[in-house]
């Protein structure tokens, strides 16, 4: 009874994911939105690495690394968009960016 069972890691992951998700839904500031998305991505990584440990296979860790790369890319584009909208003197509110309305 020294190690931590997988269940705990998965539980942590689920909790973080839900928190991040809630953040995505209730925040209107795009910066905060992006931060919440980071949280969700991280929670996924925890699960991935946890299962990697469980199955004794490095694939999960590789996955986690790829997710990080994707997160980096996403942040770059997301922040680029934030800056671009800011330069147009548009308020930092995702609800204002609704030109895709059908």
């Amino acid at each position, binding site marked *: 009874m020294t190690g931590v069972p997988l269940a705990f890691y998965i539980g942590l992951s689920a909790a973080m994911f839900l928190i991040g*998700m809630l953040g995505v*839904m209730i925040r209107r500031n795009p910066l905060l939105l992006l931060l919440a998305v980071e949280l969700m991505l991280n929670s996924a990584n925890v699960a991935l690495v946890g299962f990697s440990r469980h199955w004794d296979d490095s694939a999960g860790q590789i996955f986690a690394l790829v997710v990080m790369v994707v997160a980096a890319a996403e942040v770059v584009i997301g922040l680029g968009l934030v800056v671009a909208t800011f330069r147009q003197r548009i308020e930092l509110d995702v609800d204002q960016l*609704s030109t895709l309305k*059908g």
Partner: protein
Amino acid sequence: MATTLGWIILALPLLGCLALALFPRHGEPPKGPVIAIGVGSILIAFVLSAVVFASMLAEDPSERLHVDSLYEWIDIGGVSVDLAIRIDTLSMMMMLIITGVGFLIHLYSVEYMDHDRDYRRFFAEMNFFVFSMLLLVMAENFVFLIVGWGFVGIASYLLIGYYYQQADAVRSAKKAFVMNVIGDVGMVLAAFLLVRELGTLDYSEVFARAGELGPESGTALAVCLLLFVGAAAKSGQMPLHSWLPDAMTGPTPVSALIHAATMVTAGVYLIVRCYTLFDLSSLAGDTVAVVGMVTLFLAATVALMQVDIKRVLAWSTVSQIGYMVMAAGLGLYASAMFHLMTHAFFKATLFLAAGAVIHALGGEQSLDRMGGLRRHLRVAYFAMGAGCLAIAGFPGFSGFFSKDEILAYSLAAGTLGTIGYVVGTVAALLTAIYMFRLLFRAFFGPDPDGGYAHAPHPSRWWMAVPLSILAVLAVVGGWIQVPFGWHLIDDWLAPALVGAPEISPSHTQEVVSLIIGSIVAVAGIAIAWYLFGADRERRLRLAGVAAGPRRVLEDGYELDEIYDEALIGTTRDLGDALTRDFEPKGAGGIISAPVAIVRGSARVLRAAESGLVRTYAFALIAGVGAAGIVIVLAVVR
């Protein structure tokens, strides 16, 4: 040798047409080359036809049949059709008439069309006609018969509508074309039946195996009647005749060549060519004969009342072809062909003489404004006189022999033949009357009131020479087949008419018919002189009585009006209704229904596209939640 020349004969007018049509387009070419090509090609074709004719004369009668295939045109679904020609005595005779009369009329046109702007187009179209007509008579199978049939239709359309800026010419051309298409459909359906029943369209095979259709069978009857629809449309037989009088809007040489001498007799040629089929079904033959009788009589009555000089001749053509059709229906194939030949001579003469008059008067066509022309136009007068005597059947002239032959032989052809004889004889009397009415009113008496606006000028030799030659032929053309003498036409055609029923009148019938025929002709001329020649006042008095029937006759029994109302009007209304009402609402409704559905659903669904990122996020999550619930319910029990 014969077929090689045959191909050349066929190709020459086509090449002439192409050469004329494809002249460089800037400026009209000089007339010299146009004449050389346009007339020369027909002349050479005629000379070559004569050479072939001479070579065939040298052959044994049983060998006078030459068939040659150029290449396999199509092989489809078990039916093979070659591009092939057939030169036998029947097509030889037609070739000589077409190229011979055609050449003379081309020559005549050189002067007649002299003032025309589209000189070149005229000769190109005329050459095209000669080519098509030759194709029609030389074809070895029904497909190329129909092709030639269609091509002469085009040529006729083009030449009727030659003066394309005149509304009535355009209308007549369209009418002629459409009525001929109706005929084409008949022919085509007949060909379908042959394909279905015999699986072939070659003459030799169809005629050899015609018996398989079964004598007096419904199929044979249907084939013959459908073929006859085509023949009737082309030859202006009732009730498909009404385009022919209207076709006179074309230049007069066209009327002479196409609508008198050659094309309109194609129907007769067709029946004679397919005599094997018509012999299979006596009912079909009787129908043909009856149609011929009705036509020849009614058309003769209409011709009595026409004022336009060309329309008189047109109705007379309808009537004369009625004689031929009647003869063909009664099985008197050689007689029909004989009359076809003499008719080509004398009707061409009449038309060309009428053309000379019209040309001399600067386009005047109404008999009311003619009179005393014999003093001005000697050549036309003599030619017209010869033509009238020939068509009236005056003893010794060509029409006398050919018409008499038909009538005399009819007497030997059963009850229907006897009826035909009576009808034909009465119509012959009418023929003499209306033709001499024309002659007397145009050439005799005083000049018309007020004189001529356009002083008549005599023709130059371009017109005079062909006219004279044709006039001579109209006089002597009948002498090649003389009762109790010799039967050159019968003998010549015999190889092409093997197996046709032998009908010949007894001596009594022949003699009676000759005597009555002569009397009728002389009586008709006398009546015409009494009514129209001797006393002008009497004619004017006569014109006053019975105005109603007179108008009906002038309009050709008002068949045109009936067609307009019953057929064209109703379908036009139907077309308009479909275009105006059904098309936008019915067909458009079928189309707009799915469009409306898509649009409606899009209108509902677009509410989901709020443009707000968080709603999308929520939708996503809700979807994940729903999927999760489903999975949990499925996995956890």
